[in-house]
């Protein structure tokens, strides 16, 4: 049975082929059979994790606590310089200039990216908004969040900052940013499950050395990354504690 690798479903579509290339590279480096299984939604991925079907995961920070505390995963590496940030935006025509001007009943568009939604909802708190008094507008991706704003179907949108910056300039011009998070310490992490943990140090080293290798650099580029950085156990615990404080 091959080991199973999965990627947080919020990866950028542009990097879909990059994850397949990375998986091939990783199998070659580790001499292990690894199958890449991608999920369209977080819930499907979580069900697979709960059923102990996953051995390697590029995980959303929101799921890190569950992976470490309940399923015995340990951190390997994070992408250098990459952190998850959120943006609160409204239509450029909106009269709202500050989150504090929003009121209960505001229609909020978001995707199912759990960490981005969490950060976004925190940035809406200064307007006395919470999950209990907003009107949720679910969207399948960030382009659709933008479309909900432009069509007047939502009053504010919660975006992954990277996804907002990747919107076409024509769409971005029709939107207005109210808040951009500057948290810096929330990031996706490549993590290893119990069945592979006897090879943790070896795989961690292979990944950390990846940018020293010509082929490795090419694979990293296909993922949109520069290099991998080792995550110490305490760094992961710190991020889990941080997410725990925010998830209140």
């Amino acid at each position, binding site marked *: 049975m091959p080991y199973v690798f999965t990627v947080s479903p919020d990866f950028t579509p542009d990097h879909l082929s990059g994850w397949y290339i990375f998986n091939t590279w990783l199998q070659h480096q580790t001499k292990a059979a690894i199958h890449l299984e991608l999920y369209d939604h977080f819930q499907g991925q979580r069900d697979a994790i709960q059923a102990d079907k996953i051995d390697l995961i590029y995980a959303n920070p929101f799921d890190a606590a569950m992976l470490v505390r309940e399923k015995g995963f340990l951190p390997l590496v994070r992408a250098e310089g990459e952190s998850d940030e959120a943006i609160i935006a409204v239509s450029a025509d909106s009269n709202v200039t500050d989150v*504090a001007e929003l009121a209960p009943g505001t229609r909020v568009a978001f995707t199912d990216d759990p960490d981005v939604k969490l950060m976004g909802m925190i940035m809406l708190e*200064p307007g006395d908004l919470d999950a209990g008094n907003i009107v949720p507008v679910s969207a399948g991706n960030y382009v659709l969040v933008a479309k909900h704003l432009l069509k007047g179907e939502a009053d504010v949108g919660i975006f992954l900052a990277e996804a907002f910056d990747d919107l076409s300039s024509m769409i971005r011009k029709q939107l207005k940013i109210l808040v951009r998070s*500057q*948290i810096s*310490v929330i990031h996706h992490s490549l993590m290893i499950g119990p069945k592979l943990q006897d090879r943790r140090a070896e795989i961690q080293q292979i990944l950390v050395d990846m940018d020293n290798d010509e082929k490795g650099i090419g694979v990293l580029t296909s993922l949109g990354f520069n290099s991998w950085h080792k995550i110490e156990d305490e760094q992961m*615990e*710190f991020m889990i*504690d*941080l997410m725990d*404080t925010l998830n209140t």
Partner: protein
Amino acid sequence: MIADMNPEDIVGDYKEVTLKLFDGTSRRVLYTEIETPYPDGKLIVSTTDTEGVITHVNRSFVEMSGYSEEELIGAPHSILRHPDMPPVAFKDLWDTIQRGEKWQGFVKNLRKDGGYYWVKATVIPNVRGDKVVGYTSVRRKPSHTKVAECIKLYPTLFSLF
């Protein structure tokens, strides 16, 4: 033990009071009516040991407190204690986190320059291998409504402790 505040550090007209701190020590604090607004989109993060001594601060903590990182590391977290905060709030905080639970509340913090800033604070125990090794505190921007409620409520709580 925290050093008394220095008049040379204070910006603007100030009042003076001696605070009795939770650990039994006291500190002379100087405070003004100048508010520093909480910056949008940022989190103020710190960790302490189990005694409340600061072991880590992020950049936002340094910027908002007005102290340097060197001044903060090794200092008790009560270096931020503002005289308008009722002691019962901190008793509740310590009672809660020492039970291993999460505490959340709205806090008026004192800056090195005598000014203040309001935060919504969440404190959780850092559990490592079934043992509490310290606490992480994360502050975010509070709502004006909640702060207004606290401004009315907190003066009524001083007689409770």
